[in-house]
Protein backbone atom coordinates (compact mmCIF):
# COMPACT_ATOMS: atom_id res chain seq x y z
CA UNK A 1 0.00 0.00 0.00
CA UNK A 2 3.06 2.18 0.45
CA UNK A 3 3.50 2.35 -3.29
CA UNK A 4 1.05 4.96 -4.36
CA UNK A 5 -0.52 4.18 -7.72
CA UNK A 6 1.54 6.18 -10.20
CA UNK A 7 -0.88 6.64 -13.06
CA UNK A 8 -3.95 8.84 -13.04
CA UNK A 9 -6.55 7.38 -12.88
CA UNK A 10 -5.18 4.30 -11.19
CA UNK A 11 -6.64 0.87 -11.98
CA UNK A 12 -8.14 0.88 -8.52
CA UNK A 13 -10.06 4.03 -9.35
CA UNK A 14 -11.21 2.57 -12.60
CA UNK A 15 -12.42 -0.53 -10.84
CA UNK A 16 -14.37 1.47 -8.29
CA UNK A 17 -15.69 4.04 -10.70
CA UNK A 18 -18.16 1.61 -12.17
CA UNK A 19 -20.36 2.21 -9.18
CA UNK A 20 -20.95 5.81 -10.01
CA UNK A 21 -24.20 6.80 -11.66
CA UNK A 22 -23.94 7.76 -15.32
CA UNK A 23 -26.29 10.32 -16.90
CA UNK A 24 -27.67 7.81 -19.38
CA UNK A 25 -29.05 5.79 -16.51
CA UNK A 26 -31.77 8.35 -15.94
CA UNK A 27 -33.11 7.73 -19.44
CA UNK A 28 -35.53 4.88 -18.61
CA UNK A 29 -37.09 6.95 -15.86
CA UNK A 30 -37.47 9.98 -18.07
CA UNK A 31 -39.23 7.84 -20.65
CA UNK A 32 -41.46 6.25 -18.05
CA UNK A 33 -42.61 9.62 -16.76
CA UNK A 34 -43.06 10.98 -20.26
CA UNK A 35 -45.28 8.03 -21.17
CA UNK A 36 -47.55 8.87 -18.28
CA UNK A 37 -48.35 12.25 -19.75
CA UNK A 38 -48.10 11.46 -23.42
CA UNK A 39 -50.12 8.23 -23.65
CA UNK A 40 -52.80 8.27 -20.96
CA UNK A 41 -54.79 5.49 -22.62
CA UNK A 42 -51.83 3.14 -22.70
CA UNK A 43 -51.31 3.10 -18.97
CA UNK A 44 -52.67 -0.41 -18.30
CA UNK A 45 -50.17 -1.78 -20.78
CA UNK A 46 -47.53 0.51 -19.33
CA UNK A 47 -48.21 -0.82 -15.85
CA UNK A 48 -47.89 -4.38 -16.99
CA UNK A 49 -44.63 -3.54 -18.72
CA UNK A 50 -43.27 -1.94 -15.56
CA UNK A 51 -44.19 -5.04 -13.62
CA UNK A 52 -42.50 -7.26 -16.15
CA UNK A 53 -39.41 -5.08 -16.00
CA UNK A 54 -39.31 -5.61 -12.26
CA UNK A 55 -39.81 -9.33 -12.73
CA UNK A 56 -37.08 -9.50 -15.37
CA UNK A 57 -34.79 -7.45 -13.17
CA UNK A 58 -35.22 -9.92 -10.35
CA UNK A 59 -34.40 -12.74 -12.74
CA UNK A 60 -31.34 -10.92 -13.96
CA UNK A 61 -29.91 -10.93 -10.46
CA UNK A 62 -29.73 -14.71 -10.39
CA UNK A 63 -29.34 -15.43 -14.07
CA UNK A 64 -27.13 -12.63 -15.26
CA UNK A 65 -25.03 -12.20 -12.17
CA UNK A 66 -25.01 -15.49 -10.32
CA UNK A 67 -25.35 -17.60 -13.46
CA UNK A 68 -28.28 -19.68 -12.20
CA UNK A 69 -30.39 -20.62 -15.20
CA UNK A 70 -33.93 -21.11 -14.03
CA UNK A 71 -37.24 -21.94 -15.58
CA UNK A 72 -38.90 -21.63 -12.25
CA UNK A 73 -38.97 -17.96 -11.54
CA UNK A 74 -42.73 -17.82 -11.96
CA UNK A 75 -42.94 -19.73 -8.68
CA UNK A 76 -42.01 -16.61 -6.77
CA UNK A 77 -44.06 -14.36 -8.97
CA UNK A 78 -47.02 -16.60 -8.30
CA UNK A 79 -46.46 -16.81 -4.57
CA UNK A 80 -46.30 -13.04 -4.45
CA UNK A 81 -49.42 -12.64 -6.57
CA UNK A 82 -51.42 -15.12 -4.52
CA UNK A 83 -50.21 -13.68 -1.24
CA UNK A 84 -51.24 -10.18 -2.20
CA UNK A 85 -54.43 -11.48 -3.79
CA UNK A 86 -55.52 -13.67 -0.91
CA UNK A 87 -54.86 -10.94 1.61
CA UNK A 88 -56.92 -8.52 -0.46
CA UNK A 89 -59.71 -11.03 -0.86
CA UNK A 90 -59.87 -11.64 2.87
CA UNK A 91 -60.16 -8.17 4.24
CA UNK A 92 -56.53 -7.05 4.23
CA UNK A 93 -57.01 -4.46 1.53
CA UNK A 94 -54.20 -2.00 2.28
CA UNK A 95 -51.87 -2.27 -0.75
CA UNK A 96 -48.37 -1.39 0.50
CA UNK A 97 -48.40 -3.82 3.39
CA UNK A 98 -49.89 -6.43 1.09
CA UNK A 99 -46.97 -5.91 -1.24
CA UNK A 100 -44.48 -6.30 1.58
CA UNK A 101 -46.18 -9.52 2.59
CA UNK A 102 -46.02 -10.73 -1.00
CA UNK A 103 -42.28 -10.12 -1.08
CA UNK A 104 -41.76 -11.80 2.26
CA UNK A 105 -43.70 -14.92 1.38
CA UNK A 106 -41.85 -15.26 -1.89
CA UNK A 107 -38.58 -14.75 -0.06
CA UNK A 108 -39.40 -17.54 2.35
CA UNK A 109 -40.22 -19.88 -0.50
CA UNK A 110 -36.99 -18.75 -2.13
CA UNK A 111 -34.89 -19.57 0.91
CA UNK A 112 -36.44 -22.97 1.42
CA UNK A 113 -36.40 -24.11 -2.19
CA UNK A 114 -33.03 -22.50 -2.84
CA UNK A 115 -31.52 -24.21 0.15
CA UNK A 116 -32.53 -27.56 -1.25
CA UNK A 117 -32.01 -27.23 -4.96
CA UNK A 118 -28.97 -24.97 -5.17
CA UNK A 119 -26.70 -27.87 -4.39
CA UNK A 120 -27.08 -28.96 -7.95
CA UNK A 121 -26.29 -27.07 -11.10
CA UNK A 122 -26.74 -26.99 -14.85
CA UNK A 123 -29.60 -28.86 -16.43
CA UNK A 124 -30.42 -30.65 -13.21
CA UNK A 125 -30.94 -27.35 -11.44
CA UNK A 126 -32.99 -26.15 -14.36
CA UNK A 127 -35.29 -29.13 -14.07
CA UNK A 128 -35.59 -28.76 -10.33
CA UNK A 129 -36.65 -25.15 -10.68
CA UNK A 130 -39.20 -26.33 -13.17
CA UNK A 131 -40.45 -28.95 -10.75
CA UNK A 132 -40.94 -26.30 -8.09
CA UNK A 133 -43.16 -24.28 -10.41
CA UNK A 134 -45.26 -27.26 -11.27
CA UNK A 135 -45.67 -28.34 -7.70
CA UNK A 136 -46.75 -24.86 -6.68
CA UNK A 137 -49.09 -24.71 -9.63
CA UNK A 138 -50.68 -27.97 -8.60
CA UNK A 139 -50.87 -26.83 -4.99
CA UNK A 140 -52.64 -23.63 -6.03
CA UNK A 141 -55.01 -25.66 -8.17
CA UNK A 142 -55.80 -28.11 -5.39
CA UNK A 143 -56.21 -25.44 -2.77
CA UNK A 144 -59.24 -24.09 -4.59
CA UNK A 145 -61.00 -23.13 -1.36
CA UNK A 146 -58.48 -20.36 -0.81
CA UNK A 147 -57.03 -19.68 -4.25
CA UNK A 148 -60.14 -20.15 -6.32
CA UNK A 149 -58.40 -22.87 -8.29
CA UNK A 150 -58.76 -22.74 -12.03
CA UNK A 151 -61.52 -20.16 -11.81
CA UNK A 152 -59.09 -17.63 -10.45
CA UNK A 153 -59.15 -15.81 -7.18
CA UNK A 154 -62.41 -13.97 -6.60
CA UNK A 155 -63.38 -10.95 -4.62
CA UNK A 156 -60.20 -8.96 -4.26
CA UNK A 157 -60.65 -5.55 -2.73
CA UNK A 158 -57.74 -3.15 -2.90
CA UNK A 159 -57.96 0.05 -0.90
CA UNK A 160 -56.89 3.37 -2.32
CA UNK A 161 -53.14 3.83 -2.12
CA UNK A 162 -52.18 5.63 1.13
CA UNK A 163 -55.88 5.97 1.68
CA UNK A 164 -56.05 8.67 -0.96
CA UNK A 165 -55.46 7.42 -4.48
CA UNK A 166 -58.03 5.06 -5.87
CA UNK A 167 -56.99 2.47 -8.46
CA UNK A 168 -58.92 4.03 -11.33
CA UNK A 169 -60.07 2.55 -14.57
CA UNK A 170 -57.49 4.43 -16.60
CA UNK A 171 -54.75 2.89 -14.50
CA UNK A 172 -53.12 6.13 -13.45
CA UNK A 173 -52.61 5.19 -9.83
CA UNK A 174 -51.53 1.71 -10.81
CA UNK A 175 -48.93 3.07 -13.19
CA UNK A 176 -47.37 5.45 -10.72
CA UNK A 177 -47.49 2.86 -7.97
CA UNK A 178 -45.68 0.32 -10.12
CA UNK A 179 -43.19 2.92 -11.26
CA UNK A 180 -42.33 3.91 -7.71
CA UNK A 181 -41.88 0.31 -6.63
CA UNK A 182 -39.72 -0.43 -9.64
CA UNK A 183 -37.60 2.60 -8.92
CA UNK A 184 -36.90 1.46 -5.37
CA UNK A 185 -36.12 -2.04 -6.57
CA UNK A 186 -33.76 -0.69 -9.17
CA UNK A 187 -31.89 1.42 -6.61
CA UNK A 188 -31.46 -1.65 -4.51
CA UNK A 189 -30.43 -3.91 -7.38
CA UNK A 190 -27.92 -1.39 -8.57
CA UNK A 191 -26.38 -1.11 -5.15
CA UNK A 192 -26.31 -4.87 -4.94
CA UNK A 193 -24.60 -5.72 -8.19
CA UNK A 194 -21.81 -3.25 -7.58
CA UNK A 195 -21.28 -4.32 -3.99
CA UNK A 196 -18.66 -6.87 -2.96
CA UNK A 197 -21.52 -9.32 -2.58
CA UNK A 198 -22.56 -8.74 -6.17
CA UNK A 199 -19.02 -9.20 -7.38
CA UNK A 200 -18.64 -12.41 -5.44
CA UNK A 201 -21.70 -13.72 -7.30
CA UNK A 202 -19.97 -13.00 -10.56
CA UNK A 203 -17.02 -14.91 -9.17
CA UNK A 204 -19.28 -17.88 -8.53
CA UNK A 205 -20.59 -17.72 -12.06
CA UNK A 206 -17.09 -17.53 -13.50
CA UNK A 207 -15.47 -20.26 -11.46
CA UNK A 208 -17.06 -22.05 -8.54
CA UNK A 209 -14.02 -24.16 -7.80
CA UNK A 210 -11.91 -21.13 -7.20
CA UNK A 211 -14.59 -19.48 -5.10
CA UNK A 212 -14.52 -22.45 -2.78
CA UNK A 213 -10.75 -22.25 -2.64
CA UNK A 214 -10.74 -18.60 -1.59
CA UNK A 215 -13.02 -19.39 1.30
CA UNK A 216 -16.29 -18.14 -0.07
CA UNK A 217 -19.44 -19.67 1.43
CA UNK A 218 -20.78 -20.39 -2.03
CA UNK A 219 -23.99 -22.15 -1.11
CA UNK A 220 -24.97 -19.50 1.38
CA UNK A 221 -24.32 -16.74 -1.11
CA UNK A 222 -26.38 -18.46 -3.75
CA UNK A 223 -29.28 -19.04 -1.40
CA UNK A 224 -29.07 -15.40 -0.35
CA UNK A 225 -29.28 -14.03 -3.86
CA UNK A 226 -31.92 -16.56 -4.78
CA UNK A 227 -34.03 -15.33 -1.88
CA UNK A 228 -33.42 -11.68 -2.69
CA UNK A 229 -34.42 -12.30 -6.25
CA UNK A 230 -37.47 -14.20 -5.05
CA UNK A 231 -38.52 -11.23 -2.93
CA UNK A 232 -38.36 -8.91 -5.91
CA UNK A 233 -40.22 -11.39 -8.09
CA UNK A 234 -42.83 -11.76 -5.36
CA UNK A 235 -43.27 -8.02 -5.25
CA UNK A 236 -43.72 -7.99 -9.00
CA UNK A 237 -46.38 -10.68 -8.66
CA UNK A 238 -48.05 -8.78 -5.85
CA UNK A 239 -48.12 -5.65 -7.97
CA UNK A 240 -49.78 -7.50 -10.80
CA UNK A 241 -52.41 -8.89 -8.48
CA UNK A 242 -53.14 -5.54 -6.89
CA UNK A 243 -53.21 -3.49 -10.06
CA UNK A 244 -55.38 -5.92 -12.02
CA UNK A 245 -57.32 -7.22 -9.02
CA UNK A 246 -57.18 -10.68 -10.45
CA UNK A 247 -55.01 -13.72 -9.90
CA UNK A 248 -55.25 -16.95 -11.84
CA UNK A 249 -53.25 -20.11 -12.07
CA UNK A 250 -51.35 -18.73 -15.04
CA UNK A 251 -49.19 -16.71 -12.67
CA UNK A 252 -47.37 -19.89 -11.70
CA UNK A 253 -46.67 -21.60 -14.97
CA UNK A 254 -43.72 -22.73 -16.90
CA UNK A 255 -44.85 -20.48 -19.72
CA UNK A 256 -44.55 -17.43 -17.54
CA UNK A 257 -41.09 -18.46 -16.41
CA UNK A 258 -40.08 -19.00 -20.01
CA UNK A 259 -41.63 -15.75 -21.11
CA UNK A 260 -39.72 -13.67 -18.63
CA UNK A 261 -36.54 -15.51 -19.50
CA UNK A 262 -37.07 -14.64 -23.13
CA UNK A 263 -37.66 -10.99 -22.30
CA UNK A 264 -34.51 -10.80 -20.24
CA UNK A 265 -32.28 -12.49 -22.77
CA UNK A 266 -33.80 -10.39 -25.47
CA UNK A 267 -32.72 -7.29 -23.62
CA UNK A 268 -29.40 -8.72 -22.57
CA UNK A 269 -28.76 -10.68 -19.38
CA UNK A 270 -26.20 -9.70 -16.81
CA UNK A 271 -26.26 -6.01 -17.57
CA UNK A 272 -28.89 -4.65 -15.17
CA UNK A 273 -30.59 -2.75 -17.97
CA UNK A 274 -31.42 -5.80 -20.02
CA UNK A 275 -34.71 -5.96 -18.16
CA UNK A 276 -35.45 -2.34 -18.97
CA UNK A 277 -35.00 -2.95 -22.65
CA UNK A 278 -36.16 -6.52 -23.12
CA UNK A 279 -39.50 -6.43 -21.33
CA UNK A 280 -40.82 -3.30 -23.06
CA UNK A 281 -39.48 -4.44 -26.42
CA UNK A 282 -41.14 -7.82 -26.16
CA UNK A 283 -44.42 -6.62 -24.75
CA UNK A 284 -44.79 -3.73 -27.15
CA UNK A 285 -43.98 -5.97 -30.07
CA UNK A 286 -46.46 -8.53 -28.83
CA UNK A 287 -49.12 -5.91 -28.27
CA UNK A 288 -48.84 -4.29 -31.67
CA UNK A 289 -48.41 -7.54 -33.55
CA UNK A 290 -51.28 -9.19 -31.73
CA UNK A 291 -53.51 -6.30 -32.68
CA UNK A 292 -52.64 -6.21 -36.33
CA UNK A 293 -52.67 -9.97 -36.74
CA UNK A 294 -54.38 -11.63 -33.79
CA UNK A 295 -54.12 -15.10 -35.27
CA UNK A 296 -50.57 -15.37 -36.54
CA UNK A 297 -48.72 -12.78 -34.49
CA UNK A 298 -46.66 -15.50 -32.83
CA UNK A 299 -44.87 -16.02 -36.09
CA UNK A 300 -43.59 -12.48 -36.13
CA UNK A 301 -42.53 -12.57 -32.51
CA UNK A 302 -40.66 -15.78 -33.23
CA UNK A 303 -39.03 -14.24 -36.24
CA UNK A 304 -37.99 -11.29 -34.16
CA UNK A 305 -36.34 -13.54 -31.57
CA UNK A 306 -34.54 -15.54 -34.21
CA UNK A 307 -33.26 -12.41 -35.90
CA UNK A 308 -32.10 -10.92 -32.64
CA UNK A 309 -30.07 -14.02 -31.89
CA UNK A 310 -28.68 -14.14 -35.39
CA UNK A 311 -27.62 -10.55 -35.53
CA UNK A 312 -27.32 -9.35 -31.98
CA UNK A 313 -25.37 -11.51 -29.59
CA UNK A 314 -26.02 -10.43 -26.05
CA UNK A 315 -29.53 -9.23 -26.80
CA UNK A 316 -30.56 -5.77 -27.86
CA UNK A 317 -28.10 -4.16 -25.47
CA UNK A 318 -25.39 -6.33 -26.96
CA UNK A 319 -26.28 -4.87 -30.32
CA UNK A 320 -26.12 -1.36 -28.92
CA UNK A 321 -22.70 -2.11 -27.45
CA UNK A 322 -21.43 -3.43 -30.72
CA UNK A 323 -22.75 -0.41 -32.57
CA UNK A 324 -21.11 2.00 -30.12
CA UNK A 325 -17.89 0.07 -30.40
CA UNK A 326 -17.99 0.30 -34.17
CA UNK A 327 -18.75 4.01 -34.06
CA UNK A 328 -15.79 4.62 -31.81
CA UNK A 329 -13.52 2.64 -34.09
CA UNK A 330 -14.68 4.54 -37.12
CA UNK A 331 -14.09 7.85 -35.47
CA UNK A 332 -10.51 6.93 -34.75
Amino acid sequence: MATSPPKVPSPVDILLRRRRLRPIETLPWAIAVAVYFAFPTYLPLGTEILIMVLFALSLDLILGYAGIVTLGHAAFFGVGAYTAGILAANGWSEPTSGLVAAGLMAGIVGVVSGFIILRTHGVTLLMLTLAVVFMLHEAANKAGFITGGADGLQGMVVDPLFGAFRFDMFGRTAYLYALAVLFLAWLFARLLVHSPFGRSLTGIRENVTRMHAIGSPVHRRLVAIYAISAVLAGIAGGLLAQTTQAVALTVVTFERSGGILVMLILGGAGRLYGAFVGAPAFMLAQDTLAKSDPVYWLFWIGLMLVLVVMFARGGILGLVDAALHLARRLRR
Partner: protein
Amino acid sequence: MSRPALETRELNKSFGALAVANNIDFRLEVGARHALIGPNGAGKTTFINLITGRLQPSSGRILLAGEDIAGLSQEARVKRGLGRTFQINTLFRGLSVLENVTLAIAERQGVAGGIFRVAGAYRRVAEEAYALLERLRIAEDALKPVRELPYGRQRLVEIAIALGLKPKVLLLDEPAAGVPTPESAIILDLVERLPAEIAVLIIEHDMDLVFRLAQRITVLVQGGVLVEGTPAEIAADARVREVYLGERRHD
Protein backbone atom coordinates in the same frame (compact mmCIF):
# COMPACT_ATOMS: atom_id res chain seq x y z
CA MET B 1 9.73 -30.28 18.03
CA SER B 2 6.94 -27.76 18.30
CA ARG B 3 3.44 -28.39 17.04
CA PRO B 4 3.44 -28.74 13.24
CA ALA B 5 1.52 -26.29 11.07
CA LEU B 6 -0.15 -29.14 9.24
CA GLU B 7 -0.25 -32.82 9.87
CA THR B 8 -2.02 -35.82 8.41
CA ARG B 9 -2.40 -39.16 10.12
CA GLU B 10 -3.11 -42.36 8.24
CA LEU B 11 -4.82 -40.49 5.48
CA ASN B 12 -6.52 -42.75 2.91
CA LYS B 13 -8.37 -42.12 -0.27
CA SER B 14 -9.35 -44.35 -3.12
CA PHE B 15 -11.16 -43.93 -6.40
CA GLY B 16 -12.89 -47.24 -6.79
CA ALA B 17 -10.20 -49.87 -6.56
CA LEU B 18 -7.38 -47.37 -6.97
CA ALA B 19 -5.76 -46.21 -3.74
CA VAL B 20 -4.44 -42.71 -4.41
CA ALA B 21 -3.62 -41.95 -0.80
CA ASN B 22 -2.30 -44.83 1.19
CA ASN B 23 -1.87 -44.26 4.91
CA ILE B 24 -0.11 -40.98 4.48
CA ASP B 25 1.51 -39.67 7.66
CA PHE B 26 2.87 -36.26 6.96
CA ARG B 27 4.13 -33.28 8.96
CA LEU B 28 4.61 -29.75 7.73
CA GLU B 29 6.49 -27.66 10.29
CA VAL B 30 5.78 -24.02 10.96
CA GLY B 31 7.87 -21.95 8.58
CA ALA B 32 8.89 -24.99 6.57
CA ARG B 33 9.81 -24.91 2.88
CA HIS B 34 8.82 -28.42 1.99
CA ALA B 35 8.63 -30.06 -1.42
CA LEU B 36 6.43 -32.96 -2.48
CA ILE B 37 7.63 -34.87 -5.51
CA GLY B 38 6.76 -38.12 -7.18
CA PRO B 39 5.88 -39.68 -10.50
CA ASN B 40 2.87 -38.54 -12.47
CA GLY B 41 -0.28 -39.88 -10.97
CA ALA B 42 1.37 -40.61 -7.62
CA GLY B 43 -1.37 -38.72 -5.81
CA LYS B 44 0.23 -35.37 -5.07
CA THR B 45 -2.61 -33.22 -6.30
CA THR B 46 -5.07 -35.55 -4.65
CA PHE B 47 -3.23 -35.09 -1.38
CA ILE B 48 -3.67 -31.33 -1.62
CA ASN B 49 -7.31 -31.74 -2.51
CA LEU B 50 -7.80 -33.87 0.58
CA ILE B 51 -6.17 -31.28 2.79
CA THR B 52 -8.21 -28.41 1.40
CA GLY B 53 -11.45 -30.36 1.49
CA ARG B 54 -12.07 -30.50 -2.23
CA LEU B 55 -12.11 -34.26 -1.80
CA GLN B 56 -13.28 -36.24 1.19
CA PRO B 57 -10.80 -38.79 2.54
CA SER B 58 -11.91 -42.39 2.91
CA SER B 59 -10.34 -42.34 6.37
CA GLY B 60 -7.72 -40.55 8.37
CA ARG B 61 -7.17 -37.28 10.18
CA ILE B 62 -6.03 -33.87 9.04
CA LEU B 63 -4.73 -31.47 11.67
CA LEU B 64 -4.20 -27.78 11.08
CA ALA B 65 -2.24 -26.21 13.91
CA GLY B 66 -3.18 -29.22 15.98
CA GLU B 67 -6.91 -29.04 15.35
CA ASP B 68 -8.75 -31.66 13.36
CA ILE B 69 -10.24 -30.04 10.28
CA ALA B 70 -11.34 -33.16 8.45
CA GLY B 71 -15.00 -32.42 9.02
CA LEU B 72 -14.90 -28.79 7.99
CA SER B 73 -16.04 -27.27 4.73
CA GLN B 74 -13.56 -25.88 2.26
CA GLU B 75 -14.37 -22.34 3.18
CA ALA B 76 -13.94 -22.98 6.90
CA ARG B 77 -10.49 -24.38 6.21
CA VAL B 78 -9.55 -21.32 4.19
CA LYS B 79 -10.72 -19.15 7.06
CA ARG B 80 -8.33 -21.04 9.31
CA GLY B 81 -5.39 -20.21 7.14
CA LEU B 82 -5.14 -22.73 4.35
CA GLY B 83 -4.33 -21.35 0.89
CA ARG B 84 -3.62 -23.14 -2.35
CA THR B 85 -2.92 -22.80 -6.04
CA PHE B 86 -4.11 -25.14 -8.75
CA GLN B 87 -2.00 -27.25 -11.05
CA ILE B 88 -4.27 -26.34 -13.94
CA ASN B 89 -5.24 -22.68 -13.97
CA THR B 90 -8.49 -22.13 -12.15
CA LEU B 91 -9.19 -18.45 -12.58
CA PHE B 92 -12.06 -16.09 -13.20
CA ARG B 93 -11.25 -15.92 -16.86
CA GLY B 94 -13.71 -13.22 -17.82
CA LEU B 95 -12.72 -10.84 -15.02
CA SER B 96 -9.76 -8.52 -14.89
CA VAL B 97 -6.60 -9.51 -13.08
CA LEU B 98 -7.25 -6.93 -10.42
CA GLU B 99 -10.74 -8.25 -9.79
CA ASN B 100 -9.49 -11.80 -9.54
CA VAL B 101 -7.30 -10.82 -6.64
CA THR B 102 -9.83 -8.40 -5.19
CA LEU B 103 -12.37 -11.20 -4.84
CA ALA B 104 -9.96 -13.21 -2.72
CA ILE B 105 -8.96 -10.34 -0.52
CA ALA B 106 -12.56 -9.31 0.00
CA GLU B 107 -13.34 -12.80 1.23
CA ARG B 108 -10.42 -12.75 3.62
CA GLN B 109 -11.34 -9.38 5.06
CA GLY B 110 -14.92 -10.52 5.49
CA VAL B 111 -16.45 -7.73 3.41
CA ALA B 112 -17.42 -9.96 0.51
CA GLY B 113 -20.94 -10.59 1.77
CA GLY B 114 -21.77 -6.94 2.21
CA ILE B 115 -24.21 -4.90 0.19
CA PHE B 116 -24.45 -1.66 2.16
CA ARG B 117 -21.93 0.84 3.52
CA VAL B 118 -18.84 -0.82 2.18
CA ALA B 119 -17.48 1.75 -0.22
CA GLY B 120 -14.48 2.62 1.93
CA ALA B 121 -13.69 -0.94 2.85
CA TYR B 122 -13.90 -1.98 -0.77
CA ARG B 123 -11.39 0.66 -1.77
CA ARG B 124 -8.93 -0.65 0.80
CA VAL B 125 -9.41 -4.16 -0.59
CA ALA B 126 -8.76 -3.04 -4.14
CA GLU B 127 -5.68 -1.12 -3.09
CA GLU B 128 -4.26 -4.09 -1.31
CA ALA B 129 -4.88 -6.20 -4.40
CA TYR B 130 -3.13 -3.70 -6.59
CA ALA B 131 -0.12 -3.61 -4.29
CA LEU B 132 0.10 -7.37 -4.49
CA LEU B 133 0.05 -7.24 -8.27
CA GLU B 134 2.92 -4.80 -8.18
CA ARG B 135 4.88 -7.14 -5.98
CA LEU B 136 4.38 -9.90 -8.56
CA ARG B 137 5.14 -7.47 -11.36
CA ILE B 138 1.88 -7.99 -13.18
CA ALA B 139 0.35 -4.64 -12.28
CA GLU B 140 0.51 -3.41 -15.85
CA ASP B 141 -2.06 -6.05 -16.80
CA ALA B 142 -4.35 -5.19 -13.89
CA LEU B 143 -7.34 -4.27 -16.01
CA LYS B 144 -6.95 -6.93 -18.72
CA PRO B 145 -9.28 -9.89 -18.63
CA VAL B 146 -7.34 -12.88 -17.46
CA ARG B 147 -8.29 -14.89 -20.49
CA GLU B 148 -6.21 -12.65 -22.73
CA LEU B 149 -3.02 -13.09 -20.75
CA PRO B 150 -0.32 -15.47 -21.93
CA TYR B 151 -0.26 -18.70 -20.01
CA GLY B 152 2.80 -17.86 -17.98
CA ARG B 153 1.27 -14.69 -16.62
CA GLN B 154 -1.93 -16.50 -15.73
CA ARG B 155 0.18 -18.72 -13.50
CA LEU B 156 1.25 -15.63 -11.60
CA VAL B 157 -2.37 -14.61 -11.11
CA GLU B 158 -2.95 -18.06 -9.60
CA ILE B 159 -0.29 -17.32 -7.04
CA ALA B 160 -1.48 -13.78 -6.45
CA ILE B 161 -4.92 -15.05 -5.51
CA ALA B 162 -3.48 -17.54 -3.05
CA LEU B 163 -1.23 -14.90 -1.50
CA GLY B 164 -4.15 -12.53 -1.24
CA LEU B 165 -5.62 -14.92 1.30
CA LYS B 166 -2.57 -14.42 3.58
CA PRO B 167 -2.54 -18.09 4.47
CA LYS B 168 -0.58 -19.65 7.32
CA VAL B 169 -0.13 -22.79 5.27
CA LEU B 170 0.42 -22.34 1.57
CA LEU B 171 0.03 -25.28 -0.79
CA LEU B 172 1.51 -24.71 -4.24
CA ASP B 173 0.71 -27.24 -6.98
CA GLU B 174 3.33 -26.91 -9.71
CA PRO B 175 3.38 -23.12 -9.53
CA ALA B 176 6.20 -22.83 -12.04
CA ALA B 177 4.82 -25.17 -14.69
CA GLY B 178 4.58 -23.23 -17.92
CA VAL B 179 6.28 -20.23 -16.39
CA PRO B 180 9.44 -19.16 -18.19
CA THR B 181 12.61 -19.02 -16.21
CA PRO B 182 12.69 -15.28 -15.47
CA GLU B 183 9.17 -15.36 -14.06
CA SER B 184 9.83 -18.53 -12.15
CA ALA B 185 12.69 -16.66 -10.55
CA ILE B 186 10.14 -14.16 -9.34
CA ILE B 187 8.11 -16.95 -7.85
CA LEU B 188 11.12 -18.50 -6.20
CA ASP B 189 12.14 -15.18 -4.82
CA LEU B 190 8.67 -14.50 -3.57
CA VAL B 191 8.34 -17.83 -1.81
CA GLU B 192 11.73 -17.42 -0.21
CA ARG B 193 10.79 -14.04 1.12
CA LEU B 194 7.44 -15.02 2.54
CA PRO B 195 7.25 -14.35 6.27
CA ALA B 196 9.08 -17.03 8.19
CA GLU B 197 6.04 -18.28 10.08
CA ILE B 198 4.24 -19.33 6.90
CA ALA B 199 4.60 -22.98 6.06
CA VAL B 200 4.93 -23.76 2.35
CA LEU B 201 4.34 -27.08 0.66
CA ILE B 202 5.32 -27.08 -2.99
CA ILE B 203 4.76 -29.69 -5.68
CA GLU B 204 7.11 -29.37 -8.64
CA HIS B 205 8.62 -31.40 -11.39
CA ASP B 206 11.30 -28.77 -12.02
CA MET B 207 14.12 -30.22 -9.98
CA ASP B 208 16.29 -27.13 -10.20
CA LEU B 209 13.62 -25.22 -8.44
CA VAL B 210 12.89 -27.92 -5.91
CA PHE B 211 16.47 -28.37 -4.91
CA ARG B 212 17.06 -24.67 -4.55
CA LEU B 213 14.01 -23.99 -2.49
CA ALA B 214 13.23 -26.96 -0.34
CA GLN B 215 14.67 -27.71 3.06
CA ARG B 216 12.90 -31.04 3.14
CA ILE B 217 11.51 -33.26 0.42
CA THR B 218 8.88 -35.97 0.58
CA VAL B 219 8.65 -38.47 -2.24
CA LEU B 220 5.21 -39.91 -2.95
CA VAL B 221 4.81 -43.05 -5.03
CA GLN B 222 1.50 -44.73 -5.76
CA GLY B 223 -0.24 -42.95 -2.96
CA GLY B 224 2.31 -43.79 -0.31
CA VAL B 225 5.34 -42.01 1.13
CA LEU B 226 8.49 -43.57 -0.26
CA VAL B 227 11.06 -41.52 1.64
CA GLU B 228 11.39 -38.18 3.29
CA GLY B 229 14.62 -36.30 3.81
CA THR B 230 16.87 -33.40 3.02
CA PRO B 231 17.51 -32.57 -0.62
CA ALA B 232 20.91 -34.18 -0.45
CA GLU B 233 19.50 -37.40 0.95
CA ILE B 234 16.81 -37.53 -1.69
CA ALA B 235 19.17 -36.83 -4.56
CA ALA B 236 21.33 -39.66 -3.40
CA ASP B 237 18.54 -42.18 -2.90
CA ALA B 238 18.72 -44.96 -5.44
CA ARG B 239 15.02 -45.77 -5.30
CA VAL B 240 14.09 -42.18 -5.98
CA ARG B 241 16.46 -42.12 -8.91
CA GLU B 242 14.87 -45.19 -10.30
CA VAL B 243 11.21 -44.26 -10.05
CA TYR B 244 11.44 -40.56 -10.49
CA LEU B 245 14.62 -38.63 -11.09
CA GLY B 246 16.08 -40.79 -13.78
CA GLU B 247 19.74 -40.74 -14.59
CA ARG B 248 20.17 -37.10 -15.40
CA ARG B 249 22.41 -35.07 -13.17
CA HIS B 250 20.77 -32.90 -10.52
CA ASP B 251 22.48 -30.60 -8.15
